[in-house]
C-alpha cells in the first residue's frame, strides 16, 4: 500500500494550472525522485502535500488518511516533514535550537524538554553538524543550513520526508555526501520523496522517478526507463545536454 497517494491533483493560480490532474504514489521505504524543468510544478506539488497550499481539486492521502484541508502543522504531526528549496531556517536562533523546534512541536507525541533536547542533538549528529550546535545559524554555509533543515525535519520523527532540491548549488564532493545522507535516512525506515535537478544524484539513489512538465506528469518509471524515455529526453534531459555542451 502506498504511504502517499495523490489522485487527480490540480492546482490553479488564477488561470494557470501549475499542477494539473496528476496521479502519483510513493510506496513505503522508497526513494522517489521528482524531476522536471523549471516551472514544471514540482515545488507546488510539495506545497500541496505539506499543506502550504490548498489543492484546487483532487485528493492526497497519507497512509490512507485524507490530507485535504489539513494545515501544515497537522500534516507535520501526521508524519510528513519537509525541507525547502530556498532555505527557511530560524535565523534568530542557534543551530541546535532550530532542530529543537522540530523535536518539540513536530513529533506526534508530547515531548519533555529533556527528550526533545536529546532528539535534537541526535538529529544534528546524524547529519554531521554536532560541532556547530551552538553557533548562530546565519554563520553556517548554505550547504550546512540545508543540512540543518534536514536535521530539523528528522527531529519531527517523520515517516515521509520531502526534500526540495537538497543538492542545488553543491559541488561534486558535497553531492555525494548528500546522496549518502539521503540513503542513510532511507535506511532508518523513512520514505523519501525528493525534487532534484542534479541528475547524477537522482539516477544514483532513486528507486523510481516521476517527471513533471507544465504541471502534467509525462513519465514515471525506474531510472533506466526514464533515461531512455524519448519524451523525457526531448523536453528535459535534452535541454540539459544541450546546456552542458
Amino acid at each position, binding site marked *: 500500500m502506498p504511504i502517499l497517494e495523490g489522485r487527480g491533483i490540480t492546482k490553479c493560480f488564477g488561470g494557470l494550472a501549475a499542477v494539473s490532474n496528476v496521479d502519483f504514489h510513493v510506496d513505503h521505504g522508497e526513494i522517489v525522485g521528482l524531476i522536471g524543468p523549471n516551472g514544471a510544478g514540482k515545488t507546488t506539488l510539495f506545497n500541496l502535500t*505539506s499543506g*502550504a497550499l490548498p489543492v484546487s481539486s483532487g485528493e492526497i492521502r497519507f497512509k490512507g488518511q485524507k490530507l485535504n484541508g489539513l*494545515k*501544515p*502543522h497537522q500534516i*507535520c*504531526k501526521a508524519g510528513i*516533514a*519537509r525541507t*525547502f528549496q530556498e532555505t*527557511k*531556517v*530560524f*535565523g*534568530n*536562533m542557534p543551530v541546535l*535550537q*532550530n532542530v*529543537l*523546534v*522540530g523535536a*518539540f*512541536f*513536530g*513529533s506526534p507525541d508530547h515531548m519533555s*524538554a529533556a527528550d526533545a533536547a536529546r532528539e535534537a542533538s541526535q538529529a544534528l549528529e546524524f547529519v554531521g553538524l554536532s560541532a556547530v550546535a551552538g553557533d548562530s545559524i546565519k554563520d553556517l554555509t548554505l550547504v550546512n543550513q540545508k543540512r540543518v533543515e534536514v536535521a*530539523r525535519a528528522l527531529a*519531527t520523527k517523520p515517516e515521509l520526508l520531502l526534500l526540495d532540491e537538497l543538492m542545488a548549488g553543491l559541488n561534486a564532493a558535497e553531492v555525494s555526501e548528500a546522496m549518502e545522507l539521503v540513503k542513510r535516512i532511507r535506511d532508518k525506515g523513512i520514505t523519501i520523496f525528493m525534487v532534484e535537478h542534479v541528475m547524477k544524484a537522482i539516477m544514483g539513489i532513486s528507486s523510481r522517478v516521476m517527471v513533471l512538465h507544465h504541471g502534467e506528469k509525462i513519465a514515471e518509471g525506474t531510472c533506466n526507463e526514464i533515461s531512455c524515455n524519448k519524451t523525457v529526453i526531448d523536453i528535459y534531459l535534452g535541454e540539459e545536454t544541450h546546456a552542458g555542451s
Partner: protein
Amino acid sequence: MDITRVFSTHKKLLAAGSLVLILVFLATFPLYGNDYYIRLLTVILMYVVLAVSWAMFSGATGYMSLATAAFFGTGVMAAALLEKTLPFPFVIVIGGLLSSAFAFLIGLVTLRLRGIYFAIFTFGFVMFIGQTAFYIDAHILHNIWGHNLTPLAPGVLHYMMLGLVVVTLVAIYFIRRSRYGLALLSIGGNEEAAAHMGINTTMVKVILFTVSAVFMGAAGAIMAPAMIHVQARIAFNIFNSFMPILMAIFGGMGQFYGPVVGAAVFGYLDRTLKVELAQYFMLGFGIILVAVIVFLPNGIAGLVPTLQSKLRITMAKLRKGGQTEKHADT
C-alpha cells in the same frame, strides 16, 4: 584577580544579587523618598510593564503591534468607570481581562495579516477604540467632562505597580523559557517553517498576544488614579504605543532585561526632560534613538556580551604581556 572569571562563574549569583538590591530599593523607596520621585518611579515601572509585554510578543515574532495604547487605555477607562463601585484590586483584574478580550478579538482577525498590515491595523484600532470610548462615555453614559478619580496615595500606587511588575516579569520570564516562547521565536525566525514544524502558528500568536494585553490593561488601571482626571482621549494616547517600542529597541529585545533597561532609562528621560525641555525633548529623544539603532543594533543589552568579550581579551593580553616580560627578565 581575574575579574572576567568572577563575572562568568558567579553570573547567576550576581544577577540574583542585583535583582534583590533593586527590589529592596523599589520596595522601600516610598518610606523615605518624596512624592515627586515616587511618582516618577511608578511611571518607570509602568513603562517596564508595557515594554516587557510588548517585547514578549512583538519582539519575538516581529509582528509590530501598535495596539499597546488601546490595551493600556482600556485599563484606564475600566478604572475610571468602575473604581467607585468595585474594590480597586478587582478593577485592576477587570482592566486586564477586558484588554485581553480585545486583544483576543484583534488577534483572531488580524494575526493572519503580515508585516506592515498588522502594524497599520493595530494603529487604526487605537484610533477607533479611542473615539468609540469617547462617544460612549460622553453621549451614552453622559460623562461629558470625563471622570475625576478618587486620589490614591503615591506610595499605594507605587506598591500596586511594583506588584504588577513582579507578576509581569515572572510570568514573561517563564513564558519565554517555555515551549510557547520557543514557538514565538520560531515564528519570528520563519513563520512558514514554524508551521511546517508542527506549530499551530495562528493559535500561538493569538494566545500570546492576548496574554501580553493582560499586563498592559492592568497597568492602565493602576495608572488611572494617578492621572486624577481621565478622559477617553487622554486614556488612549497613541504615545503609549510608541514609547514601549522605543524602549524595547533602545534596551535590546534579544535579552529578557533589555526592555527593562530601556524602560528605566527612557521613562526617566521622558519625565525629567519633558518638564525641563518641553518640545526639545522629542528632538533629543529622536537623536538618541537613531544613535542607538545605528551603533547598537541589539540595544543596550547587546552591549553586555560585547563588552564582556572585550574585557576578557584585554585581560588575556595583559596577562600575556606580564608573562612575556617575566620571560624577558630571566
